[in-house]
């Protein structure tokens, strides 16, 4: 909200306080000044200039060469504005001044060959309005050389204050001034109401009926007769333009002015357009339509609170008036509405209309129900003064259930317990009183306050403590340097994932973080996707079901950027609907799992002076996965299953299972899938359900003594039929060997013509050892020979070489 410091000074005396301190104190008490413009600073170098002469520029049709008098000297200035004329008083920017728009400094310049020493300014360049049609032409009586800060009253400080949703009371100059009064311990001066009412009684001109008192607890009105609708006086226009509002006419301007003064939104109706001179407040029962002030036809849902006259709706209550009853230049008699509406009702309506106005913004945050009449009278008084109207005597005020002030106790000891610091009792009471609270009971330990109804946020003791703390100043509460904490168990849910991250980086993988919000296509690749109700775009309309699509998008982007050799991993949550639908009613209806993906594509080694280029393959993926599993002690717990072409994602793949439960799978991604992501090179990836991995119980690591006795090594090679798989042979040898055969590994594999068609050679190394003794040659040789026979027989294989 834009706030003018000069305006604030109407209500609180801040004479001896520096602007900088005011701005800082506002921020430090919770009314955060996000930005501010100190006009005294911005306009300090600009002065009134007198255009003494105007001549054509010799080299440019649209430019003029002016002689500008600054009172002290006469300067030659080039001006491009069409409206510059000799004899005008103008705003002159001398050399060295900084133009607010664009923040550029005026220097001596040559424009089309003619020297120019300064600039004549437009309102746009000075950021006074967006009018850039020509230069500002000022009152002829102003004195050349005078600073414009004084001459044009550009001596305000305009602040942009962020008002938090709990502080509806601060959505006005009086509200901000009240906080300043508390901060600087000053008086708050409410404008006095001084009505000169006519003998005509309001009841003879209008009547009000509130049918929905739940959504309209109070409706107050004043009537002003015989007004003349015209332009507002300078002071009022200035007040409004300073805070960014456009003046319209004296009636509308006053209602706006009072809203920014007291926070009470007002609405002025043309009384003669109110059928039956009547106001009826009621909620709609069915869908209807209504044309608002901005000439837009709006569709109203049932239950929308409306202001109606005797015949028709005339305003959407608390949101916007109707076109049919707005103030026009011929308006003579007006009714000023000043009401308190139920915040939820206004919020519902504003949301359903997609229309947030200054009025609805305030009503949905709470407007003081006990302040309606004051604001109506304040507006009536100003309108009468500015329009020559007369105020009908009395007011209409429908207020069946008075909203009472809340009583809130404050225990001094509790303040200390919560803040950890003692603030003098008197100081606390003084702060709360300045904020408008009244003491109704006092003892040594406790004090009871009555809280004004403009502060709905102050309901409990803790709310009062916050008020004390923020006005006293958070920075005045000490920052302690010692803490005591309870000893006890410490838990780290992220520890397992962090270990995996560490191992993955050790293997050369880079971590990526992909957006879990995806397109329908990406999220539809695997699993049961869940849709967002209100997506921002089609690209981000579903939750990811797997980490694969996001990873492929990242690969595609990197390949496009020239990074073709990629080793990536990600740990992130994936979401799947359980029932195959997105009808989610409970946490049972979907799964959210933390997954882990590894991805490899491109080269693993580049061609260098030492090595040839090599591309990653399936075995690189498998090896990396097994290395990680080894580090987390799961290598011997999980078993593999291998698949060829039984999958929509992979050409070939493998699963990692614990018993029969799959905890991860991956392989070489199908070309058709890659094509959807515009990837032309082979991609290998593997995805784990990390939650499942984490839940597998593993034995604590124990030290194993390094082997003290020598190993006996034997090698053999066989010619097998091509379809015989390594894994099967390896398992068979291991199972068939006697207890001291500890390792079986493949050291050579090849096919050749010499071996015959559909044959291959696999060569194995066998390691025999015991932790307790040296093995004898005889026992090893015996087992070895047995194995040769067993393998030959089992696989119909032929021993090679020996």
């Amino acid at each position: 909200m834009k706030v003018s410091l000069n305006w604030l000074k109407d209500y609180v005396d801040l004479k001896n306080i520096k602007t900088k301190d005011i701005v800082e104190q506002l921020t430090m008490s919770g009314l955060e000044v996000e930005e501010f413009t100190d006009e005294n600073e911005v306009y300090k170098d600009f002065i009134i200039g007198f255009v003494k002469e105007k001549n054509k520029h010799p080299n440019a049709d649209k430019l003029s060469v002016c002689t500008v008098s600054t009172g002290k000297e006469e300067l030659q200035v080039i001006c491009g504005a069409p409206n510059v004329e000799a004899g005008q008083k103008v705003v002159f920017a001398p050399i060295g001044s900084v133009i607010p728009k664009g923040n550029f400094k005026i220097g001596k310049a040559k424009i089309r060959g003619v020297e120019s020493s300064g600039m004549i300014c437009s309102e746009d360049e000075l950021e006074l309005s967006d009018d850039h049609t020509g230069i500002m032409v000022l009152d002829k009586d102003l004195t050349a050389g005078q600073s414009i800060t004084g001459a044009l009253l550009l001596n305000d400080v305009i602040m942009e204050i962020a008002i938090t949703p709990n502080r509806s009371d601060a959505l006005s100059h009086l509200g901000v001034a009240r906080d300043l009064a508390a901060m600087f311990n000053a008086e708050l001066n409410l404008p006095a109401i001084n009505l000169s009412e006519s003998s005509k009684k309001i009841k003879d001109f209008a009547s009000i009926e509130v049918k929905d008192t739940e959504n309209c607890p109070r409706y107050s009105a004043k009537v002003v007769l015989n007004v003349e609708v015209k332009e507002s006086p300078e002071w009022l226009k200035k007040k409004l333009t300073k805070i960014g509002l456009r003046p319209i006419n004296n009636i509308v301007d006053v209602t706006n002015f009072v809203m920014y003064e007291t926070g009470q939104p007002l609405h002025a109706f043309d009384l003669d357009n109110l059928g039956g001179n009547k106001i009826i407040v009621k909620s709609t029962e069915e869908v209807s339509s209504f044309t608002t002030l901005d000439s837009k036809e709006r569709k109203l849902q049932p239950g929308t609170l409306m202001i109606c006259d005797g015949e028709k709706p005339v305003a959407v209550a608390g949101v916007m008036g109707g076109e049919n009853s707005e103030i026009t230049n011929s308006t003579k008699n007006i009714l000023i509405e000043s009401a308190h509406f139920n915040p939820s009702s206004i919020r519902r309506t504003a949301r359903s209309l997609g229309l947030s106005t200054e009025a609805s913004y305030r009503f949905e945050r709470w407007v003081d129900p006990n302040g309606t009449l004051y604001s109506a009278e304040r507006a009536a008084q100003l309108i009468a003064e500015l329009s020559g109207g007369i105020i009908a005597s009395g007011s209409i005020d429908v207020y069946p259930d008075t909203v009472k002030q809340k009583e809130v106790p404050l225990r001094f000891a509790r303040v200390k317990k919560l803040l950890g610091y003692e603030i003098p009792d008197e100081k606390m009471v003084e702060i709360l009183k300045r904020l408008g609270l009244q003491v109704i009971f006092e003892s040594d330990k406790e004090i009871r306050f009555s809280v004004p109804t403009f502060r709905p946020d102050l309901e409990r003791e803790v709310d009062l403590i916050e008020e004390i703390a923020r006005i006293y100043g958070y920075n005045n509460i000490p920052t302690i340097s010692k803490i005591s904490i309870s000893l006890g168990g410490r838990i780290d849910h992220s520890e397992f994932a962090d270990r995996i991250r560490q191992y993955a980086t050790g293997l050369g993988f880079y971590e990526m973080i992909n957006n879990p919000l995806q397109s329908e296509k990406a999220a539809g690749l695997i699993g049961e996707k869940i849709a967002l109700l209100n997506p921002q775009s089609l690209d981000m309309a579903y939750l990811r079901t797997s980490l694969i699509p996001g990873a492929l998008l990242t690969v595609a982007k990197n390949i496009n950027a020239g990074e073709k050799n990629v080793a990536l991993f990600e740990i992130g949550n994936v979401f799947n609907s359980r029932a195959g639908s997105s009808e989610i009613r409970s946490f049972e209806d979907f799964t959210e799992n933390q997954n882990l993906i590894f991805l490899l594509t491109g080269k693993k080694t580049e061609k260098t002076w030492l090595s040839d280029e090599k591309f990653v393959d399936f075995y690189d993926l498998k090896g990396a996965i097994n290395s990680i599993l080894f580090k987390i002690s799961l290598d011997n717990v999980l078993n593999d299953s291998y698949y060829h072409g039984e999958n929509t994602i992979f050409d070939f793949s493998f699963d990692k299972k614990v018993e029969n439960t799959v905890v991860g799978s991956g392989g070489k991604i199908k070309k058709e899938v890659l094509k959807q992501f515009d990837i032309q090179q082979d991609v290998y990836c593997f995805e784990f359900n990390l939650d499942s991995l984490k839940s597998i119980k593993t034995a604590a690591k124990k030290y194993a003594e390094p082997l003290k006795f020598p190993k006996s090594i034997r090698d053999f090679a066989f010619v097998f039929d091509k379809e015989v798989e390594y894994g099967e042979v390896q398992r068979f040898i291991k199972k068939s060997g006697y207890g001291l055969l500890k390792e079986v590994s493949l050291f050579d594999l090849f096919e050749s013509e010499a071996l015959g068609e559909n044959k291959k050679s696999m060569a194995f190394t066998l390691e025999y050892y015991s932790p307790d003794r040296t093995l004898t040659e005889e026992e090893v040789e015996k087992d070895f020979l047995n194995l040769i026979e067993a393998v030959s027989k089992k696989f119909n294989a032929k021993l090679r070489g020996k």
Partner: protein
Amino acid sequence: MSEVNIDNVKAGFEKDILTVKDLRQIEDIRIKYLSRNGLLAKLFDELKNASPDEKPMLGKSLNSLRNEITEKFVSLKSGIESASQKLASKIDLSLPGVERTIGSKHLLTQTLDEIKTIFKGLGFSVFEGPELESDYNNFEALNFPFDHPARDMQDTYFINKDFLLRTHTSPVQIRVMTEQKPPVRVIMPGRVYRNEAVSSRSYCMFHQVEGLYVDTDVTFAELKGTLVSFARLFYGDDFKYRFRPSFFPFTEPSAEMDITCFLCHGEGCKVCKQTGWLEILGCGMVDPNVFKYVNYDPEKYTGYAFGMGIERTAMLKYGIDDIRVFFDNDLRFLKQF
């Protein structure tokens, strides 16, 4: 077996060593003469068959041959070895080395790790919670009433009227307090979502670390002390900090913590909107209403909570001006950290 055999072996050895140039040939020599199946071993084998008269003589000759060959072999080998070492010292050391790739954690993970390390040092546990949350945990139990303007502070992605993508990590507070009784001292890192237009300053999701401490005598002064201590450890001692009042429905009093601007050091610049300060986190004392939702006695217990954005923190610390770079996963970015 005769002296002749011995002489032949000797002559052969003398001849062979003349042509030895490298370690491989040295090894050949060793195998030929000195190994288990070498010529010397053969001669010793044959010695067994010699007549008792000849045996002492031949034995003596054979022993002296073995000593001579061994000695010459050793000296030849060490000569060749030192020569080849000299040669080795002449290799082109300026050729490029063979590098090994160490990957890296994402910069956001690294930043979070730093934050976690500090808070774990201050005795905090680490808890996580789901991203697809109930409206109850995300809003209601955190004192955001339905239909309240406070909900406008956080643009929300809904799944339906009861479920949503969490807009902050604060629902984990509710989960932790529902699960356990005080004292509770935890940080809760995680991903959160906001339905905001994607730009250099905002993304549809980001990461937060939430903190919560509930016990019998937790005070606002302690909150300040703890967070200033964290900030000094994380950002260093060259900064000033301040706390200013703010509003969060689930804390009362509420505050935001600012740090002096990195760019202008408090002078005022475009980045800090001329204020000289940058906001780094939100915090406050746990609102008694929240305690009621989780059945903690608000008279007995007090607590503080805080939350900070990890992206924002990393952007400040590393001078990143576009939040989207975190989620583009461009390797040229990932490899920098």
